[in-house]
């Protein structure tokens, strides 16, 4: 299946999905957050069986988080980036772990680092941080230097 065929199939098969072919072998699909899991199911049925990563971006100015699911098809050699946006206030999305069981760990990390809640993920426990007390540390409004100053003591002055 070529990129253009895939683009048409996704736009037809998933509600409110917009796909663009970025270059040969790479497709960017944007879906609303309610359609994210159905898009994952549709893609998996088309041979996209490798979920390489889930990443999260904090768009502070727009008040949104962006989740990107990176999918790869071994038969078609196409990389699909499935993007969806959530509101920054009380971010929630349905888990992808029934479709891709290993998504549980990625979601666990995003929950720890950004505070995104994945409904249905049975194991949203801390992964990397040890007894973390502060706000999720990868959010852009988290003041790292102030936190370091308060928690670990002095930091050297920095000229910028």
């Amino acid at each position: 299946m070529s990129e253009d065929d895939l683009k048409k199939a996704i736009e037809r098969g998933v509600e409110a999905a917009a796909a663009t072919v970025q270059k040969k072998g790479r497709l960017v699909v944007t879906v609303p957050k309610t359609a994210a899991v159905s898009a994952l199911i549709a893609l998996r049925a088309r041979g996209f069986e490798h979920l390489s990563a889930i990443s999260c971006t904090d768009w502070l100015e727009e008040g949104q988080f962006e989740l990107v699911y990176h999918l790869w098809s071994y038969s078609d050699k196409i990389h699909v980036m499935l993007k969806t946006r959530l509101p920054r206030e009380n971010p929630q999305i349905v888990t992808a772990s029934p479709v891709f069981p290993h998504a549980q760990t990625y979601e666990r990390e995003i929950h720890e680092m950004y505070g995104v809640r994945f409904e249905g993920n049975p194991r949203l426990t801390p992964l990397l941080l040890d007894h973390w007390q502060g706000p999720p540390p990868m959010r852009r409004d988290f003041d790292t230097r102030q936190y370091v100053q308060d928690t670990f003591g002095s930091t050297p002055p920095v000229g910028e």
Partner: protein
Amino acid sequence: MDRAEILKTLKSPAKWGQKYSLWAVYFCTGCGVVEIPPVITSRWDAERFGVLPMATPRQANLFLITGYVSVKTLGAIIRTYDQMPNPKYVVGFGSCPVNGGMYWDSYNTIKHLDKYLPVDGWIAGCMPRPEAIFVAVVHLWQMIDKGIATGYERYKDNYEYYQTNQRAILPHLAKFAGAEAAPGRNS
């Protein structure tokens, strides 16, 4: 051994023994541990200096903190240090244990190791060369000779200070039972 050494050795054989039997805990805290395999193998051969790696902390007395120390690792380091028998020596290896190094504003890496453990010596650099470890070992010999490598006694004397700092970031850490034990058994 030259003739002047003999008298010194007879005066305090314990120091002489401690000096030449430094067993390093094989504990890799960070990236600095890439320097350890060439040091302990034939290329630089730390055994010439009496330094050998030991898998268990209960049979070791030299603790090289190799590289950055994350909060989770600090808990393991404190547990390991508490298990080591006296006399024990801690050497911070690389910039990161000294002041955070390139992780100076990281939310999950401690900045000053000597707030949590008594440190006998530092090796600066990122990375230090394997030769720097031998310089540190020779310095440690001199410190043992002069009787100033007394980090384990400082830990006991100032345990309240260390414990407060440790519990400030690791509130769940178990209390070390040996803290109330009798003071230093060797001078």
